[in-house]
């Protein structure tokens, strides 16, 4: 029998596609179900945030960092504040450091919940998504109470945090982490331990250690590939050096490595670690100190430049600022985890099934606005 003649087909996936999490486009060539090449086409959500950072004053740019990555606005605020504080040598009160760590880790939990929920949904499991969003709403409630906004928080300010915790807020956080701790096993029953889900992801979208490092992957995606690297521990900032927490990495301890499943499990484990961090912050909270912010009216750093990286839920979030001695930056550059994660798709995709490509993209937890800025 003669072999059937097949032909490559060019397929356009996105920019509006249910599985691309925002406006993202992939140009695939596939032979039947098998992807031959996949080129991510980014830039649909480009809002010139870096340029805006050069027009705005240092203080005025803060609300825009919310929009760099709106799924974890607290971490984005924090990363920017760290960079400006280092550049202008601004002290941060201890109380503010604790509040920052608490909101930062809560935001990590809520961000991972979105990542896990959408990933499960992309693979056809609908229930985990509302489950995750419900828990995320509880974090948002906490945020709304402390800063007044649910999504674009603008809470971590240069020199501290915008508001002190309202009365009873810390107890509410404790109640949340206590109850959420019990919810994680339920989540694992619901989806992580699900045999079908497991089978669907194991061995899919394998990014080995070498590739991950070569492409500059960071954050949970990097750790899933077995690289022991976490900026919170390795280039510590805030009060992280005082806190004890584990950094889950792919390998025997996790039971999986390199593949989509590892990237899923690692996020579940990271939520547990975040809970640990929040609990420690609550236990050691400096109630005696009252100041939550160094009051500054103007930020006018000396001429120079600075790059400060912080560990956001989607990997290394770094701000590179060149100062010319005025109130506005000469150059603002933002390095985000999603962008590098996107670049690796081109390398990993060939040979995957189209449906597995969806799993790969979902497991990388990319957020479109963070790719484009």
């Amino acid at each position, binding site marked *: 029998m003669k072999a059937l003649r097949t032909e490559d087909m060019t397929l356009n996936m996105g920019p509006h596609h249910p599985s691309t999490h925002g406006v993202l486009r992939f140009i695939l060539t596939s032979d039947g179900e098998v992807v031959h090449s996949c080129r991510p086409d980014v830039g649909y959500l480009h809002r010139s945030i870096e340029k805006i950072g050069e027009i*705005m*004053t240092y*203080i*005025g*740019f*803060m*609300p*825009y960092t*919310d929009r760099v990555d709106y799924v974890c606005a607290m971490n984005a605020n924090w990363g920017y504040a760290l960079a400006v504080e280092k550049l202008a040598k601004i002290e941060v009160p201890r109380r503010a450091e604790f509040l920052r760590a608490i909101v930062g880790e809560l935001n990590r939990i809520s961000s991972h919940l979105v990542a896990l929920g959408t990933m499960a949904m992309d693979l056809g499991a609908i*229930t985990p998504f509302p*489950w995750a969003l*419900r828990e995320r*709403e*509880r974090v948002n409630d906490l945020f*709304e*109470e*402390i*800063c*007044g*906004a649910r999504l*674009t928080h*603008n809470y971590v300010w240069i020199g501290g945090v*915008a*508001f002190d915790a*309202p009365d009873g807020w810390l107890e509410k956080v404790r109640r949340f982490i206590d109850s959420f701790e019990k919810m994680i096993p*339920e989540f694992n*029953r*619901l*989806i992580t*331990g*699900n*045999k*079908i*889900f497991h*089978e669907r992801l194991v061995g899919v979208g394998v990014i080995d250690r070498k590739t991950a490092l070569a492409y500059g992957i960071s954050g949970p995606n990097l750790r899933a590939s077995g690289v022991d690297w976490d900026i919170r521990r390795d280039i510590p900032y805030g009060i992280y050096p005082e806190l004890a927490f584990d950094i889950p990495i792919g390998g025997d301890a996790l039971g999986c490595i390199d593949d989509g499943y590892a990237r899923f499990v690692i996020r579940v484990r990271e939520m547990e670690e975040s809970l640990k961090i929040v609990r420690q912050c609550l236990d050691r909270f400096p109630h005696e100190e009252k100041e939550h912010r160094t009051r500054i*009216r103007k930020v006018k750093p000396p001429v120079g430049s600075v790059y400060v990286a912080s560990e956001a839920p989607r990997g290394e979030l770094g701000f590179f600022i060149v100062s010319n001695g005025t109130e506005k930056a000469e150059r603002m550059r933002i390095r985000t985890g999603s962008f590098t994660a996107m670049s690796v798709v081109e390398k990993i995709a060939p040979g995957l099934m189209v449906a597995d490509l969806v799993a790969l993209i979902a497991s990388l937890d990319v957020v479109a606005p963070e790719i484009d800025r």
Partner: protein
Amino acid sequence: MIAYVRNIQDACASIFDGMAVTFSHLFRRPITVQYPDRIPRRIQETLPDRTRGHLEVDLDICISCRACEKACPIECIVIEDVRIPKDSVAGVDGKETARVKEPTRFDINLYKCMYCGLCVEPCPTGAIRFTKEFEGATDDLSRLHLRFVTPERREVVLRKGEGYEREQAEKARKKAEAAAKPEGGKQVDPPAAGEESKEGDKE
């Protein structure tokens, strides 16, 4: 073969496990509400105090210092003002603050506003603040252009401004007279503030 059957068994078991979790949610308290109707209270009343909704200004305690105008990154706030005879206002925290100007125009473009709160923070009296109102959807953008100074209020403020100007003119005249008497040769600078108030008058 055994592995194959075991696989199917595991899959079924985990489906039932998942379903059990899903089923248990039938008996939990729902955390969603039926917005906007079918809720006992307006949703605005249930929001926390710090909610960043629409902005409002209490013009009675605004001293027109323009700190909010300067703080706003996108220039949502437009203020025009006149000099008035000096008095003082009690801020929201009860602290007295001197007031030498009052706005004749105080506009906030809510359709540009991103509700960041940078304008609220530097206000010395707490005049500008967030309300819990957030339902801004409209088919008419001008409805989101809030003009806080009503025409009537503007008239009142302008009259105050005229009062200030008369006061200044009076002062200048007296000063000139006093200067003219003993020596007669010294020139008196007109007060700078007087010019400003004329500007306000033109509007």
